[in-house]
């Protein structure tokens, strides 16, 4: 196999790895169908439903957190919601205790306070499908539904960061030049809903929402 062949094969395998695996329930239904040599339409639909139902939590982080889930139930948006300022996700290349040295390339972050140098691996989101504040177990969450293309990049970004060592496995979330949070990524976020947690109260979460979408 040539270098080109290997590059293409690797990229295709990477893409295949983005898929959320079908749950064992679906596999079991499929195997049962093979055993019986008879698979009803109802069973096939049930198997597919189980696949959809598998799109659930795989990532949590400490402190101000970044996680994902099947997301709050929301109607499919008809058009993109343009952000007031770009939302930038940037890898953390280095971190130290504040204050930041003058003339250093580091920037001050909060939640928790830190002096960060940002890495070049980043992505910028200028529009989303929807955003809302919601409560879960008393926690105020800012939930953002990414567009499909952004979601795919975010999955790749978080998957790659999760493989790296501290502090390069942290992801700074920057809104309007302010680092909102820099959680550690411990797994790929593969769904389109991304949830930011750790706000002190609902007002703080809603302020973050307004800073995003006005």
């Amino acid at each position: 196999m040539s270098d080109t062949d290997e590059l293409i094969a690797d990229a295709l395998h990477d893409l295949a790895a983005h898929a959320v695996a079908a749950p064992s329930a679906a596999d079991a239904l499929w195997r049962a169908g093979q055993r019986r040599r008879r698979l009803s339409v109802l069973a096939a639909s049930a198997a597919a439903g189980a696949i959809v139902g598998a799109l659930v939590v795989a990532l949590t982080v400490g402190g101000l957190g970044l996680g994902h889930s099947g997301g709050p139930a929301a109607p499919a948006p008809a058009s993109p919601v343009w952000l007031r300022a770009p939302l930038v996700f940037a890898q953390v290349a280095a971190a130290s205790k504040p204050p930041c040295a003058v003339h250093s390339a580091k920037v001050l972050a909060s939640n928790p306070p830190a002096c960060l140098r940002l890495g070049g691996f980043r992505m910028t989101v200028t529009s989303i499908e929807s955003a809302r504040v919601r409560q879960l177990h008393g926690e105020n969450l800012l939930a953002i539904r990414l567009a499909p293309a952004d979601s795919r990049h975010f999955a790749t970004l978080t998957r790659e960061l999760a493989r790296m060592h501290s502090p390069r496995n942290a992801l700074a979330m920057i809104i309007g030049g302010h680092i909102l949070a820099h959680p550690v990524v411990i797994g790929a976020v593969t769904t389109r809903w991304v949830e930011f947690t750790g706000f002190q109260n609902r007002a703080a979460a809603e302020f973050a929402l307004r800073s995003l979408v006005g």
Partner: protein
Amino acid sequence: MQLIRLAYVLTGDQHAAEDLLQNALVKAAAHWGRIHTAPEAYVRRIMYREQINWLRLRARRRETAMAQVPEPPAGDEAAGVTARLALQDALLALPPRRRAVLVLRYLEDLPESQVAEILGCSVGTVRSQSHRAVAQLRLALPSLGLTSTEVHQ
């Protein structure tokens, strides 16, 4: 490879992949008596053909989804990551038939004759589609240094 992973590579979207797989399973279920000896191969074939036909129709009336390429990296491992992302984007931007040919050749590792049989075309078409796909990738990503590749039986 799991069927859902194959569906994802063909569609580039988790939800579309689930739809594609669900439709293929429903169609397979309707013909279970005929296909029960090799159901998975049948489902795969449905997925390839449905995706090609669906995208062919859709391409005429929708805007092309231009995925955002992450901004240039600072260096070290980030450079490799970005290059891989760019190649993945380029693969997803390929026309559906060309992408399907590459998936069958490089991901499923099937010979040209079998690729042609699955896609319902000639071996010559498989060769030309594969050659054009690699050429398109090379054009989109000159920095990756993709070289011309020979497609072997």
